[in-house]
């Protein structure tokens, strides 16, 4: 897991804070934690703030009016998400895809799902999930073995599959 603030170093400090029965968690590297603790003496800090801070990460540029990006299904704007740290519906993931991808990577250290899938999906979708997950596993193994040539090859195959899916 990487630091929630700088995103470069491993998070080694894990903060839990409770405000009005609401718990929030932060994962920071030692350096950022030191800075944060100085700031925290003066202000309240919640999960929404944390996600809001993180959510800026994927923002393309200041002049692009990202506050007008709106989920077509539930009407939530990206700004609202930044404020409250909660998405409005499952479609938001698609609507804010370009921002969320880097956010998820920061939070989890990965932005590819490995694990089970719902029972009620078509066989074609199931096959696709299996081939995706298989490739992702192979990618992880290649990186662990430091076989970067093979890793790049697998990464390209995943990209191909993703492109095909978009079309």
């Amino acid at each position, binding site marked *: *897991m990487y630091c929630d603030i700088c995103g470069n170093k491993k*998070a*080694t*400090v*894990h903060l*839990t804070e*409770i405000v009005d*029965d*609401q*718990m929030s*968690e932060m*994962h920071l590297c030692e350096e950022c934690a030191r800075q944060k603790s100085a700031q925290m003496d003066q202000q309240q800090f919640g*999960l929404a703030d944390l*996600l809001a801070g993180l959510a800026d990460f994927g923002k393309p540029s200041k002049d692009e009016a990202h506050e007008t990006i709106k989920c077509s*299904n*539930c009407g*939530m704007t990206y700004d609202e998400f930044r404020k*409250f*740290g*909660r*998405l*409005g*519906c*499952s*479609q938001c*993931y698609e609507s804010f895809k370009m921002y*969320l991808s880097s*956010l*998820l990577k920061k*939070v*989890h*250290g*990965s*932005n*590819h*799902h*490995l*694990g*089970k*899938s*719902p*029972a*009620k*999906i078509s066989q074609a*979708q199931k096959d*696709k*999930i299996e081939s*995706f997950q298989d490739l992702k596993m192979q990618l992880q193994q290649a990186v662990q073995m430091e076989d970067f040539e093979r890793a790049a090859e697998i990464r390209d195959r995943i990209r191909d599959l*993703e492109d095909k*899916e978009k079309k």
Partner: protein
Amino acid sequence: MKLDDFIHNTGQWLKGRGAFSNIVMSSRIRLARNLSQKPFPNKARKKELNDILVAVEEATKEIEFFKKSVFFKINDLDNVDKQFLIERHLMSHEHASNPEGKALIVSEEEVLSVMVNEEDHLRIQVMQSGFNLNETWRIADTIDDALSQRLDFAYSIHWGYLTACPTNTGTAMRGSVMLHLPALVMTKQINKVLAAISKLSFASRGFYGEGTQASGNFYQISNQVSLGHSEADALQNIGGLIRQVIEQEEQARQALLVQNRPMLEDKIFRSHGILKNALIISSQETVELLSMVRLGVDLEIIKDVDRNSINELFIMIQPAHLQKIEGKKLSASERDTKRASLIRQKIGG
């Protein structure tokens, strides 16, 4: 089954059975699930929340595991009842505080509870006593499969299960284990252990729910990351970590016995003595003393008390439980008296 029937029993997870039950109180799996396209509870209107409630209730009616379960609308519960369900670890404070359009489903023996319309449409929780993550996962997995045949869950090939908070996206699974670690606390090693745990991206918190500090020497340890690791891998990782913590606690217990047995026995017998004789006692004092008595039972220093009774007391001595047992509202001082009498009755000998 009605809510009042719960008071005569306690959940399966408190029975003090299963692997390493001298140190591990319980294992828990929580899965977050949402219905595809429907707004998440924070964004949903009253009607949409009710539609979700109806859809979930209908789906559960067809599933064998839910046959003997109870369905509560949170709006129908009074404050003591809500507190009672929180104290039993069946629902969260958040679920109770804003009750509109929310429900709770609890299965027989309290193995399974499902919060409907908490932060996500479904929060499925399975609990088992002892160190038993694999069996707990097997039950949760089966229930999730059964539900997903009837409900259209929000899922993406790339990001897995889609949740209201991005910190849960992916498997949307938290595996957690509740550990009783009095010897690590007494030997002042606990902070070292907790620091090591957090370095490995796991979280620790107290016995009385999210956001509570550890009391009674109980620590709940859970995985943090839900994207990029399969459920099996995440459980294997947390299982490995828990085994190490158990080993550390066992070593600390042996060290106390070898190096400082009289002091340890004195502390345990004094705690038992106070609990057996007190007429008025606060919950904080009770929890600390019960922790020592539990250690005494585990080390066979106390032989006339069983672990199950101690485990149950950790739940029963809380305010709403005392009021449900008494069948009426009690002031704080009345509760302290009632608490002491309940303890004398359970472990007074």
